């Protein structure tokens, strides 16, 4: 009995000690949380709210009319087309690159891995300049292409090329660590059971990487639609023809057409929000799968 008494006494003493050791003074706690909230509010929530309020300044009616403007409408369409070409291209490229890097040993592998990261480290403006230098009227290929009636710069192909370049690493970067961790024995098992290379990819590799792949595609798409710098250099800003949504926002804003500028900006902001939500949902699912692959 006496023992029990001392034991319980001792344990209460311990909990108090633990509480003191792991938590800060109330003032410090609220102070830190408050600072963090202020920061998030000022730099994230406030600007986002401003975009939406500015767009709705003259009511939802005008918001819709502005979006129905033919130039704006063509900007939206162009953005969708560009993303629709760039994302599938980088999807295929990303899988191929990740496959090569994760499942094979070859010379120059480290170099290739670094090269894939290049678009991340280069300023988007420079990425655009590269294409101007490559296809401009003073370049080697430019005049030849032009004489054959192929227009790259200041046209859709140039915009697609610049976007592909800038969004190059997203899918590959997402897949390489995942595929490296999963190793090659699943594929070897499928091959030993008589599966062809394509069957192995379709029935074994792809299901193993599908969440990581989707995640990479989502990020790639968000960037493809929102890219400004590289596209701005190669597009030539031809109204109704080569303006993507981010470029259209800039033009409208420079013309003091604030409601229209913010209305288009709203669409881009919505894209960002949807991406974020999907990304968080995927992360929940995807992390469970990563954990499963570790357990496996």
């Amino acid at each position, binding site marked *: 009995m006496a023992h029990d008494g001392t034991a319980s006494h001792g344990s209460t003493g311990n909990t108090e000690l633990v509480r003191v050791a792991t938590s800060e003074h109330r003032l410090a706690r609220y102070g830190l949380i408050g600072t963090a909230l202020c920061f998030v509010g000022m730099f994230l929530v406030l600007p986002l709210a401003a975009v939406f309020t500015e767009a709705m300044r003259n009511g939802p009616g005008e918001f819709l009319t502005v979006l129905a403007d033919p130039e704006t409408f063509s900007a939206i369409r162009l953005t969708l087309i560009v993303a629709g070409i760039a994302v599938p291209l980088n999807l295929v490229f990303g899988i191929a690159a990740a496959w090569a890097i994760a499942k094979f040993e070859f010379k120059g592998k480290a170099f290739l891995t670094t090269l894939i990261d290049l678009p991340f480290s280069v300023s988007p403006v420079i990425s655009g300049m590269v294409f101007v230098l490559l296809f401009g009227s003073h370049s080697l290929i430019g005049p030849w292409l032009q004489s054959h009636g192929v227009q790259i710069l200041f046209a859709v192909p140039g915009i697609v090329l610049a976007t592909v370049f800038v969004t190059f690493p997203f899918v590959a970067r997402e897949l390489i660590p995942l595929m490296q961790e999963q190793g090659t*024995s*699943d594929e*070897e*098992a*499928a*091959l*030993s*059971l*008589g*599966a*062809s290379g394509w*069957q192995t990819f379709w*029935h*074994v590799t792809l*299901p*193993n990487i599908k969440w990581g792949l989707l995640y990479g595609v989502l990020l790639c798409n968000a960037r493809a639609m929102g890219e400004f710098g590289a596209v701005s250099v190669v597009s030539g800003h031809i109204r109704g023809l080569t303006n993507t949504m981010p470029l259209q926002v800039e033009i409208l804003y420079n013309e003091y057409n604030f409601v229209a500028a913010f209305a288009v900006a709203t669409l881009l902001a919505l894209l960002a929000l949807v991406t974020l939500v999907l990304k968080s949902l995927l992360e929940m699912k995807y992390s469970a799968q990563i954990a*499963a*692959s570790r*357990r*496996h």
Partner: protein
Amino acid sequence: MEVRVQNIRKEFGRFPALNDVSLDIRSGELIALLGPSGSGKTTLLRLIAGLESPTEGTVYFGNEDASRKTVQQRNIGFVFQHYALFRHMTVLDNVSFGLTIRPADRRPSKADIRKRALELLDLVQLSGLEKRYPAQLSGGQRQRVALARAMAVEPNVLLLDEPFGALDAQVRKELRRWLREIHDRTGHTTVFVTHDQDEALELADRVVVMSKGQIEQIGTPDEIYDTPNSPFVFGFIGQSNILAVRVENGQLWLEDRSIGVSAPGEADGPAQLYFRPHDIELLDGCGGCIAGIVTVTRRVAGTRHVELDIGAANSTVEIELPPEKVTSDRSRIAFRPTRWKLFRD
């Protein structure tokens, strides 16, 4: 099916993993590739499977040269150390996989595939778990699914790469016995890789001991244990004592004393004497023996392990005695090896 490996050489970069290895695997036998890590045993297994291709040499399946065949054409069953089950498929789908991916003209009907997969799951004692996913199974269960999956395609040869390596000791022992039963019932030619000598000696019809990319010895478990043909095999399998001795006129001498062991036909000169701790007889008088003073005794299950200090130049020798033979520290024991082998450098 009979598998023959002939003069196989395999290099990774410039590092030789296998050097002129030849091996005949008889139809229906259960054979173990045993060796320390880096001995080339897994490489040899993967070469038979077609997951690696040899730098030189040939692999025959029956009378057919399989060296140019791909892994798919060889029709083998491979079981991986970490199971490599398809995690997004149920147990049943995993086992059926090899049959469902066949081209239409060689593919059994859906009902037949299902029937065969269920039969195999019954064979590996996993009936009722066919709807589970790999993540919902224990390690031992997963490895049994992997074996059922490999057997579903009626392979020419079953190849197992450290099949019990990732399991804990208890499950390991159970599965070992169980694999032997399955083998006796199905009669598949089976090759398995292990670094665990108990596993190899208990399970296999024949054991291939490998070291540094070469085969050291091939034989039944008894042959490997009782008559090792190299210092490596002697040292790697079981316990052994090594003494530096001298041969003189067909007698073995330890420093300045005869140890009462004759080696007729052996040339004079220095040699290494190898013997097992239990292959000895105790002597009362010492008219030619190894004598030493007890330094440590340990009782391990049914035997008593005794360490003896036998004099200056030689370190300690360990012998095994029946437990009822009580020895006290510092007491003197005289013995003579009954089964032994001499090796020269």
